[in-house]
């Protein structure tokens, strides 16, 4: 057994928060009474792999070498977990015991969980791992068939294998034929969305939703119970352009890390709904277990807070920083993990305690004091994150009749197209994926190509008390979005006027 090395090396990886660490596995087989030990701060899911590996080797026609089997996983100072090391360990054992040929100058990467019959299964976090593994220059890369979607997201080159036998065959006569994975178009776009024409008779809300999509503006909808606030969020997701390839991968990686191979690969933008009983850990993420929160999960999509008035003010204030910075940070053991949270925040709530404030007639039972107290639940700094305010009244009988009279014409696709065009205008103006709501230059007026006249008109409106001083910038941003959406190069006074209407809230 001349080719039998003392130590075989193989690579695998594990996800840690938002990134992945590639680890080197060293396997040594030395003669003696059979033992099996795994070292390198491994948790019990890795140590239990002994049983899986032994059974899988047998099922695939190999055998566990007789002697001491020692596997060291580096970096040895980092805690590791997960059953994704199984395949690498099994292949390493076969290398070390000479059951398959091993060349020490050949870098091999393998991951996947083994089942007792030898088949290979994917494990959560694959998208993150493959992203890293793809750029490390491995000659042989073996991944489970389950992780095909993750591989497609990362634009990765390697080989999907069904079971251990297939994995070993690439080192033999069959040879290694890598496959180039890419996200061509197969990412399915999902279920039917509510059409925007359902908002007939609620022109202000309709426009607010369109502008929110067009400029990625945060929005607050205040309306009576039953005025269709939740529907508004669904409509918004229907007019947003689909995720591009990079974004799809990013979003998938996050969901895959949570749900494993069951996660859906889709170009639909995520919509996350949160309710007032949400805990800070669920909202921002848990640093101990490194699970992303709702804000991170809504990245590139919509975070919809229903009944926003019922949220504890501490929870709302926790959102302030992430909304401003467009990312969530978690701290653990002195390391900062950053999840990006580039999202549209949509809040919906009642305008007063009884909810009837905007209804015609005098159906509201709240006194002025009650109402004021109710509205102060939203703190000033939080409101500063909101670009668009719109009130919603409940739909009357006539509106319902109108709504169902000419139901045939779906308007959402046309709006979506216009929004897409509007995004392109913004991205080419600012460079990169930056929108009117998020651009942060030293000189806003210059970057947005606003004329002197527009600026003075805006300050004139502010001086008349149509919006606050801090609303000034927001108004300009929104006016720019309106002009972009309508395809105008210059912002007009009418655009500023319209933007002012969406700032005209009495909070």
């Amino acid at each position, binding site marked *: 057994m001349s080719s039998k090395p003392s130590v075989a090396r193989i690579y695998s990886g594990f996800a840690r928060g938002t990134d992945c660490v590639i680890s080197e596995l060293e396997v040594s087989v030395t003669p003696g009474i059979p033992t099996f030990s795994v070292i390198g701060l491994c948790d019990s899911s890795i140590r239990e792999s002994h049983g899986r590996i032994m059974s899988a080797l047998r099922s695939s026609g190999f055998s566990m070498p007789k002697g001491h089997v020692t596997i060291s996983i580096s970096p040895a100072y980092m805690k590791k977990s997960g059953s994704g090391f199984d395949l690498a360990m099994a292949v390493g054992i076969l290398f070390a015991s000479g059951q398959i040929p091993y060349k020490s100058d050949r870098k091999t990467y393998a991951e996947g969980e083994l089942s007792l019959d030898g088949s290979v299964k994917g494990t959560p976090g694959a998208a993150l791992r493959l992203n890293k593994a793809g750029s490390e220059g491995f000659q042989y890369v073996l991944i489970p068939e389950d992780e095909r979607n993750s591989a497609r997201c990362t634009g990765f080159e390697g080989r999907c294998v069904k079971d251990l036998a297939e994995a070993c065959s690439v080192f033999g006569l069959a040879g290694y034929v890598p496959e180039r994975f890419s996200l061509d178009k197969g990412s399915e776009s999902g279920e039917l969305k509510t059409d925007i024409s359902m908002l007939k*008779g*609620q*022109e*202000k*809300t*309709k*426009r607010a939703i369109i502008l929110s999509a067009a400029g990625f503006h945060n929005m607050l909808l205040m309306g009576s119970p039953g005025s269709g606030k939740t529907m508004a969020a669904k409509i918004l997701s229907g007019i947003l352009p689909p995720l591009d390839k990079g974004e799809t991968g990013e979003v998938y990686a996050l969901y895959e890390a949570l749900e494993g191979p069951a996660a859906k690969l889709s170009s639909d933008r995520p919509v996350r709904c949160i309710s007032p009983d949400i805990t800070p850990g669920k909202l921002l993420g848990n640093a101990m277990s490194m699970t992303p929160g709702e804000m991170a999960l809504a990245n590139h999509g919509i975070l919809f807070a229903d009944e926003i008035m019922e949220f504890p003010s501490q929870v709302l204030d926790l959102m302030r920083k992430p909304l401003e910075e467009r990312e969530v940070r978690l701290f653990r053991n002195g390391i900062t993990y950053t999840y990006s949270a580039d999202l549209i925040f949509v809040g919906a709530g009642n*305008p007063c305690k009884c909810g009837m*404030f*905007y209804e015609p*007639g*005098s159906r509201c039972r709240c006194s002025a004091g009650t109402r004021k107290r109710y509205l102060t639940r939203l703190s000033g700094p939080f409101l500063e994150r909101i670009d668009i305010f719109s*009130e919603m*009244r409940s739909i009357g009988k006539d*509106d319902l009749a109108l709504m169902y009279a000419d139901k045939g014409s779906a308007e959402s696709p046309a709006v979506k197209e216009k929004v897409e065009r509007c995004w392109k205008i913004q991205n080419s103006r600012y460079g990169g994926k930056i929108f009117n709501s998020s651009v942060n230059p030293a000189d806003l007026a210059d970057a947005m190509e606003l004329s002197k006249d527009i600026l003075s008109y805006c300050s*004139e*409106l502010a001086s*008349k008390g*149509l919006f606050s001083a801090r609303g000034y910038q927001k108004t300009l941003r929104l006016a720019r979005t*309106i002009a972009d959406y*309508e395809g105008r190069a210059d912002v007009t*006074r*009418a655009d500023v*006027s*319209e933007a*002012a*209407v969406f700032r*005209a809230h*009495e909070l």
Partner: protein
Amino acid sequence: MDYKDGEMRDFYYTAVLMNTQVDYRVIRELFERGDIETHRDLYGLAKMPSSKIKELLLSPQSERKVRDWMESKGKVEAACGEYMQLGRQYGIKVVSSLNRIYPVNFRLQTGMPKVLYCRGRTELLNQCSNQGSVAVVGSRNASGYALYATERFSSEFSSKGITIVSGMALGVDRKAHEAALQGSGNTIAILAGGPDNVYPPENAELYKQIVSKGLVISEMPPGQQPLRQYFPSRNRLIAGLSDCTLVMEAGAYSGTLHTASFAAVQGKEVFVLPNNIYFANAEGGLKLLEDGCCVLYSSDNVIDSVSQAIVRRRLEYPDLMESEESGGKRTVPEASNREKLDIIRLKADKNPDDVSDEEWEALIEDELTVKSLDIDSLCNSLCLPFYRITDLLIRLQMSGRVVLENGKYALTFR
């Protein structure tokens, strides 16, 4: 200023009624027999020889009264001259039923005076018809509670362009006028004596303010002292001019109850401010409530009642609502604009692109006249795209013609 011939005849008509035995019954008989066509013809009638009185074919009593008039023609003319002299001195305007500005509410009822003597902004009479009016009446020595409510309601209504009508008495009347003057100044005081006669004298300062910012009217000629017997008739006018009546506080035998019953007889709603049952001065008001008047607890009910009255007037008497003398600085469409508005509306239906911004603004203001609306309702009723309406609304807001309150757009009245 001097009076025109027609106005002189108005004075003459009043002089006849005030100084001879001729009364409304005689006047009605003269109308029925076709002897006169308008009240101004009385002046011509006076020229006829007394031998012709027989030919008028009046009833014996009326004939006697007319003879009395013919005998005291000199006295009548002297009185007429005196009235006009005082009228010129105080700048008193005469509004008769032949004027377009004569209140529509008076036209719709019988027994209202043909001639009114006014001091102040007569265009308020027009506004009364177009934007509604509310009579606010009550006790002269009202409780703090009633005065508080009076102030709150009056200032709210006047800020919405509704005219506050009252009698310039002490207590509730005074508070109502004051609250209205603080705001838009849309207030009308109806006096029992001549319009130049300040009664009660304690209200001299208030009178001055009403004359400058509001309007004082009376059916009595200038110089006439307010006599006891004139007050019920004055109360009838208060109820008659307004679209509904608010009784803030009334004792068991209060004159306020007259106003309320006149209003009820004229088919107008009476709202009564509920009060403490152990409070003696509230008994009259509580009795009214027992008789089925509306409870005054929210301004919305009153506004609904007023806007219904306006809509009814517009629908049933469109020709009466038209007036050439749309006055004032107000840009809100007055009745004279109705035809113009209809033309614009027609144009907006056919080809909305031809409608200018000013015309749209006029339409928006017209929509907001009766009640405040949210932006969605405006969009729907005008069939105007959202981005157009926002620009128009902001411009209206900038020029101070429209305000946003409670999420709805409302006209300002300042």
